[in-house]
């Protein structure tokens, strides 16, 4: 959705979308069958205890009020877990798990860009050659393999067979490698194809022909002229795909038992900790919207003509 809106309006729209998402998740949580109070207290609980817990979990309140209380708690930082003993503060948990997911997503993006972009450039320069066809095959496979299969495969090879990397563990950096690779590989395949297409397009342009005519070295033509111009669509796609990296982290975190935001989200759904679920969704949503906004900003900054253009 890039339209002729000033950025401020876009930011407000993003915030509105985040609020709507919060309300939407509240509605869905409310609709999901299974009384959380019954689930938590077990069947032996007395009605009076159930009523007390229902009140403590805000379940006696209308949905918009629940959502409002949640947002107020979220904004003031006093938000607490909505399951007994209601002691766990949500913000410290988020501060603990969100950087882990951010680490995962960033390393994954690095993998994706670091692998995909050079691969794309080389295949464009050697279009039709063996390396091009090989990279095409690899990238098609990369797009097709489900992340959890890739994760299982990597886990099995490096974790179980070779014992090279810790399957889980205390060394965050080392144990981030496998899940990040899993998460980034699919995107790198996509990026390599986008890069290739953009490079082919750029190499056909007049200024490249002019640069060649001026007798500049081929490397200089490729990197200084064609590549710089091809980078724009690549970065845009990378930014837009950040959302899929975030969502993908839910599954990948489960495969690798990585204690990040996705794990907290799934755990909280199991525990019926509605505040934690809402908080996770809000963080996911805000991050996604922020990255989109940044992508737009970067786009506008890099190319003032690039505004508009529709969906």
């Amino acid at each position: 959705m890039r339209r002729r809106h000033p950025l401020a309006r876009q930011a407000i729209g993003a915030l509105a979308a985040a609020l709507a998402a919060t309300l939407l998740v509240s509605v869905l949580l409310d609709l999901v069958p299974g009384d959380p109070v019954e689930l938590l207290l077990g069947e032996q609980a007395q009605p009076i205890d159930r009523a007390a817990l229902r009140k403590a979990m805000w379940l006696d309140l209308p949905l918009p009020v629940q959502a409002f209380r949640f947002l107020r708690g979220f904004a003031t930082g006093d938000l607490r877990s909505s399951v007994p003993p209601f002691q766990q503060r949500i913000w410290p948990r988020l501060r603990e798990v969100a950087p882990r997911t951010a680490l995962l997503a960033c390393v994954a993006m690095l993998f994706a860009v670091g692998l995909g972009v050079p691969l794309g450039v080389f295949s464009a320069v050697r279009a039709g050659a063996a390396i091009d066809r090989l990279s095409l095959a690899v990238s098609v496979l990369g797009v097709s393999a489900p992340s959890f299969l890739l994760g299982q495969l990597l886990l099995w090879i490096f974790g179980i067979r070779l014992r090279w990397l810790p399957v889980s563990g205390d060394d965050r950096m080392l144990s981030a490698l496998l899940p990040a690779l899993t998460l980034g590989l699919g995107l790198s395949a996509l990026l390599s194809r986008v890069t290739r297409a953009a490079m082919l397009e750029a190499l056909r342009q007049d200024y490249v022909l002019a640069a060649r005519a001026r007798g500049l070295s081929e490397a200089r033509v490729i990197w200084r002229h064609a590549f710089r111009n091809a980078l724009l669509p690549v970065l845009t796609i990378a930014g837009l795909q950040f959302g899929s990296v975030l969502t993908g982290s839910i599954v990948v975190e489960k495969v690798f038992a990585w204690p990040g935001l996705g794990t907290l989200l799934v755990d909280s759904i199991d525990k019926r900790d509605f505040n934690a679920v809402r908080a996770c969704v809000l963080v996911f949503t805000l991050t996604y919207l922020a990255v989109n906004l940044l992508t737009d900003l970067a786009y506008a900054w890099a190319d003032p003509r690039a505004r508009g253009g529709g969906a």
Partner: protein
Amino acid sequence: MLARVVRPAALFFLFALAGCPRPPLPADTVVLLVESAPETLDRRLALSSVAENVAGNLLEPGLVRVGEDGRPAPDLAERFEQLDPTTWLFTLRPGLRFHDGTPLRARDVAASLESLVDPRLGSPLAGKYRVIQSVEPLGELSVRVRLEEPDAPFLADMAIGVVPALGAAAPGRDGFGRHPVGAGPFRFVSWDGEERLLLEANPDYYGGAPAIGHLLVKTVRDETTRALELEAGEADLEINALSPEILPSIERMPRLRVLSATGANTAYLVFQTSDPKVADARVREAVSLAIDRASIVRFKFHGHATVASSLLPPGNWAHAPGPAVQRDLPRARELLAEAGDGPGHPLSLVFESSTDRFRRSIALALASQLGEAGIDVRLRSLEFGTFFAEVNRGDFELAALKWVPILDPDLLCWAFCSGSIPTAENGWVGGNRERFRDPALDSLLLEARGSSDERLRLTDYRAAQALLARELPYVVLWHEDSVAVVRDDLEGLAVSPYGFFDGLARARRLGVGP
């Protein structure tokens, strides 16, 4: 251009790495793996089994503990006696001390019990303790508890944690549950609120200081990872945190031992007996005869389970010994035909189970065995909250469930008395979700509930179990073992049938500790 991306990213990593410095663990640390983090360390607020286990069995024990036969046994109280049907007298062990060094006195017990129903504490367990009319400290060491009415499970409920009187009722939302003080074998050192909880041996523990100097309770959510950490020696033991399916692989790992004890739990199938399809006891018997319990125990549990003949596990004092049901397909078909569900008009049932992977695979095996007897089974696996809600509303035909842990035989009345049917009027409270009604059973179980004569109770419970084996509102399946996987240098761990962690107070690691 790339450098612009790479440099901040590299910096980010450095921060991420530096962000989690972790002090080294003491050399005498034993690492216990659990599958989910406790939500609190206050036994009075605990709902999950991990929290109950860590808080109740390691940090804050109660007046009594439940023994292996399901009978309450002395813990902090060295004696307890029932003065009349509604009055109990508990006598504390002399010289008890809390972890902070203060003596544990009768008024701490009184304050702990009173705090359970205090709205300032807001314990979700309050319902069990509303039966208490008054708690009077008699001197330093005795407590008299008066009840509103006779209550068979009361004594077992006295296993609830005893905490210091000071601030017992209003511990503060961030207070006690994160820095607990009790009189248990281990005391609190540190907790990050999630994955890592460090405890140390309590030198003042009345049963003697544990030989394990430090205990790290570490949460690892993924099962394969738990197994690999045990194999790699990154952890020393787990108790009931690995599924039976993975045990054969574990048994092949050189430095690990699998310890097993018959568990105090029972897996069963429950019928909605008010549904005309299964209202005929012959149909229920046919289901029971169609199931090949032995092969499921052998192949799915790899022997780590015992075929059941009664809802009460064999270790329970009121267990009625009886023959295990053998699979008999011809007889099952015969019974179905007699009940009008023969091949021309086959019985068709919806069978509900939870989405847990292992439970689903067992349900699939059961459904296939019922299919061989000519019963058409449609399997539905529901997310646990939904499953639980539907079962509790009586909204099912056939469901697979497990009772755990089974302590007092009064469970039979909870599960089968006609007064225990959950309805909208009673706020869906009650364990008789199958809506089974039998006046003879009611009178046996209610007599046993109101009596403190153990001989009479035993006679009643045996008669009730015989009646249940004929009427079959439940088809009991098996008792699943409590299984601990330990490194081979950990000695002396007794596996509790309940999967309790208290055995750690008497375990030791070879070459380390006193």
